[in-house]
């Protein structure tokens, strides 16, 4: 492993953090904007290194960096990339420059602070995604929370304080329980293995070695933390508030990446660590997810506020991701559904991110997000209309957009596992088409009923610059899914077929002979 590969992840994590300090301290706003954007772009380019040098055939952890941190407790700085987090990392690094671009001409107070907070947020997101040590993960997980708290609380709407406090309290309550469960897991591992470690790679071995006493409770604690973040019905009540009150950048990053932390956490922590509990609780969670899908869709349908509608649609769409993560066929997870779930996370990030951006654009022009204030915008803003329609179609899951690939794979896998669940969930797709198209119709078509709307100008060059990449990528993901699927297939297949005795090792490091690994069922890696 060359030296770039050994440190690339640390670079991606800490470059934004460093940039945020510089941005906060720079006296000139102009320079600060350029520095922030350049740093986020550099981070994105660095993350492309992962994309190009990632070995898609390997199920091992790649680009690993491990440093002792609290050696006495077995806590280390352990980061790495596999097929489950690769695309999410890229999504985060891809969205951040676009976010910075979208606030380039920010008119409110504290432009520099906002940029600095977005960069800290990027650091937290990437850190949480690449962390393979429970304590490290927890720290990044909470680091993510603090900038978001300020973004909603300072630059948000009228009820911002209520929304942001609720957001923090919900998240922290869940994650503190997760922390306690993680400590319990840590001690159990210490007793069993004879050494203490918070490394996930070590903790995974517990499940393979025959499970953990009290596993159900530990699983529930982890599940709660992630379910709040996803958010899984009925833990979703913070989300509509947070989304409605947040400024556009906040909503985009919240829907784009932060919510995925919940589903990612399920895949990375809850499922492989507690497989027996997963088998026990999967039906109930599936039920909650289906309720969430239908409930989210129905609630989205009756919204009058565009942002609230997109927020509830997120509840519905993330329900699909949870479904896909827990479709159990026989004693394995369905690889198709799991692949679809990972794919859908990315696609939802892109399409919902784009939707929030677009809603933000009309809000900037009209200071309203109510459907009743719009209508006929296609006439005055044709390019805006085009972008909105593509984003909508991707959100619905029309073939040719990324949404189709993700939802199709999920429903395919779930149907094999639980046909009834799949059928019920499909109603969410239909409802999705209903409310999303209604939304499009109310905003874009029909006669222009408000005089103010006649003067609206179409997208500016800067707006083009940040919305086009999202839309193009959405379509690209629908047309060339294999390009992305090939990166995630091995890791997902490995998790799906071995979830009851999951194990992960660092690429290039061969486990000692005494370290008996359970056999890998290579044939079970499904090749669609």
């Amino acid at each position, binding site marked *: 492993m060359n030296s770039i590969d050994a440190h690339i992840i640390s670079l991606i994590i800490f470059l934004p953090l460093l940039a945020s300090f510089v941005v906060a301290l720079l006296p000139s706003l102009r320079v600060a904007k350029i520095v922030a954007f350049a740093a986020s772009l550099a981070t994105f380019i660095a993350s492309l290194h992962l994309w190009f040098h990632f070995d898609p055939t390997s199920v091992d952890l790649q680009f690993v960096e491990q440093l002792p941190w609290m050696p006495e407790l077995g806590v280390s700085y352990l980061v790495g990339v596999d097929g489950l987090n690769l695309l999410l990392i890229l999504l985060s690094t891809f969205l951040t420059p676009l976010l910075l671009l979208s606030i380039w001409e920010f008119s409110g107070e504290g432009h520099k602070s906002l940029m600095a907070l977005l960069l800290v947020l990027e650091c937290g997101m990437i850190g949480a995604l690449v962390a393979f040590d429970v304590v490290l993960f927890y720290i990044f997980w909470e680091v993510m929370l603090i900038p978001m*708290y300020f973004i909603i*609380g300072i630059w948000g709407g009228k009820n911002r304080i209520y929304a942001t406090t609720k957001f923090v309290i919900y998240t922290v309550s869940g994650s503190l329980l997760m922390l306690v469960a993680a400590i319990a897991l840590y001690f159990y591992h210490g007793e069993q293995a004879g050494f203490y470690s918070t490394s996930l790679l070590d903790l995974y071995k517990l499940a393979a070695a025959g499970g953990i006493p009290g596993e159900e409770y530990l699983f529930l604690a982890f599940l709660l933390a992630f379910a709040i973040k996803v958010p899984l019905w009925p833990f979703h009540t913070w989300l509509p508030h947070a989304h409605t009150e947040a400024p556009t950048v906040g909503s985009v990053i919240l829907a784009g990446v932060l919510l995925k932390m919940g589903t990612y956490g399920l895949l990375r922590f809850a499922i492989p660590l507690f497989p027996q509990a997963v088998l026990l609780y999967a039906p109930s969670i599936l039920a909650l997810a289906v309720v969430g899908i239908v409930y989210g869709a129905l609630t989205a349908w009756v919204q009058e506020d565009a942002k609230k509608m997109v927020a509830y649609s997120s509840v519905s769409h993330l329900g699909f991701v949870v479904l896909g993560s827990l479709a159990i066929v026989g004693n394995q997870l369905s690889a198709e559904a799991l692949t679809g779930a990972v794919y859908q996370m990315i696609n939802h990030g892109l399409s919902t991110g784009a939707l929030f951006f677009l809603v933000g654009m009309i809000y900037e022009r009209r200071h309203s997000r109510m459907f009743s204030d719009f209508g006929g915008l296609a006439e005055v803003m044709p390019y805006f209309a085009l972008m909105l329609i593509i984003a909508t179609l991707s959100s619905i899951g029309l073939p040719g957009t990324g949404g189709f690939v993700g939802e199709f794979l999920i429903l395919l896998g779930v149907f094999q596992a639980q046909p009834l669940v799949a059928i019920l969930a499909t109603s969410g797709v239909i409802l999705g088409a209903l409310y999303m198209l209604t939304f499009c119709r109310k905003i874009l078509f029909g006669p222009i009923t408000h005089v103010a709307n006649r003067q609206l100008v179409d997208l500016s060059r800067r707006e083009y610059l940040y919305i086009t990449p999202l839309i193009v990528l959405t379509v690209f993901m629908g047309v060339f899914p294999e390009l992305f699927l090939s990166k995630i297939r091995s890791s997902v297949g490995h998790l799906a077929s071995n979830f009851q005795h999951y194990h992960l090792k660092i690429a290039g490091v061969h486990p000692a002979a005494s370290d008996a690994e359970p056999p890998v069922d290579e044939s079970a890696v499904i090749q669609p």
Partner: protein
Amino acid sequence: MVSTFTPLPSSFYQAASPFLVLSVCALLILLSGVTKLAKNSCCIFVLTNIAFGATLLGVCCLSLPGRYLQDALVVTPLSIFLQLLLLGFAWLLAILTYFSHLRGDFFRSELVALYLFVLLGMMVFSSSEDLVSLFVGLEISSIGLYTLVGYTRVTRFSLEGGIKYLVLGSFATALLLFGFAFLYAVTGSLQLPVMMAAIASGQPSLWLTLGASFTIFALGFKLALVPFQQWSPDAYEGAATNITAFMTICVKIMVLSLLIKILGWVSESLGGTWVYVLGLMSVASMLFGNIMALIQSSIKRMLAYSSIAHSGYMAIALGVMEPGNSFPARALLFYLLSYALTSLLVFGIILSLEHRQGEAIQLNDLKGLAKRYPWLACGLTVGMLSFAGLPPTAGFLGKFFVFNAAVQEGHFGLVLCAVVASVISLFYYLHLVVMMYMHAPGKFVVENPNWISLVPRGILAGAGIGVLALGTILPGLVLALLQGLFG
């Protein structure tokens, strides 16, 4: 007992030199009150710095590990560490005070001398394993503190706080003496090691239980653990802010120095009961402190309740201590370190803000602080996050280690209560942040944005960076250091 006078070995004088230096300096400062020097707070400040510097030098260079005078003075790595903490924080607080509005009120010869005597008492207490000198140390510090609370800045509230502290404190002192008497009666010795050996080998008896519980309750009073907390909000609010900070930080260090030494043995000999008693006290403190803090409008009162809650968290680690396992003690020391550093940061900022306003500040006064003083607001936010136990601050790791210690002993219920209390505490810690960042500016008007001089700014920045570093890059190092203390 020694019947004839034998000259003490010179090693004793060397080991005791920090105490001797500090008392001589304190006496000199007291004496300087009769000269014209005392009129000038600057002179007193210089003398104070000399006193601290000389004592610190003594602790660093002359400390000779060993046991002297039948354990009346025990110098171990742990005691040196605690003395350094006490001295360091007291010195930093004195410097912060000098650059605040309290300069004229505090830098008077008699008050500074008292301050140093209190510190002396704390240092004696933390490096003694003999009941008599422990008691003397505790009393020197307590009596000085009663006075400091009431007289540093005389208002009706400070007198009220001082009197309450005095009355209830005397009660606790009596309780402590009573406890000591029982312990002496049961074990026949005043030396802690002998006593602990006797306790460990003997049978549990009623008198032993009474003695141990009285002792620990009295110390719980000093920590303001529920149900011995009534004095603390009034004393905290009434006292001048530098004294409040001094109580928050140094009294906790002092009391825990003894509890760390004895609790393992006490709980061992008294069976599992102690865990429940301390557990109950800690749960009550965490919940009571955090819930009461929710409804306060004065910052110092809020922090007083928050300090009760933090004593509760520390009591979790105290409850799970046992001989042979130093992890709870180290977790506790880490928590203490992070709490002390955070308190220094928070109280330092409050002191600076008061400097602007010249009176106790209310939560509402903080509205829009971030717009006026972004760095102060940033520092206060770091402090609040650390108090609330959110990463990446020292407060998180402190809680993490304490939870670790408790889970290791299987006390899930205790940890779950602590989690609930932590969530409750988020409301008021975040409320302060909300006030600073999410409201339109209130009372603080900019006249001179550079009103905080360089020295306190440096101290506050150092404390803030320390809180963050302790939560991110330093914990491994600090844990290793603490490991060294317990050998």
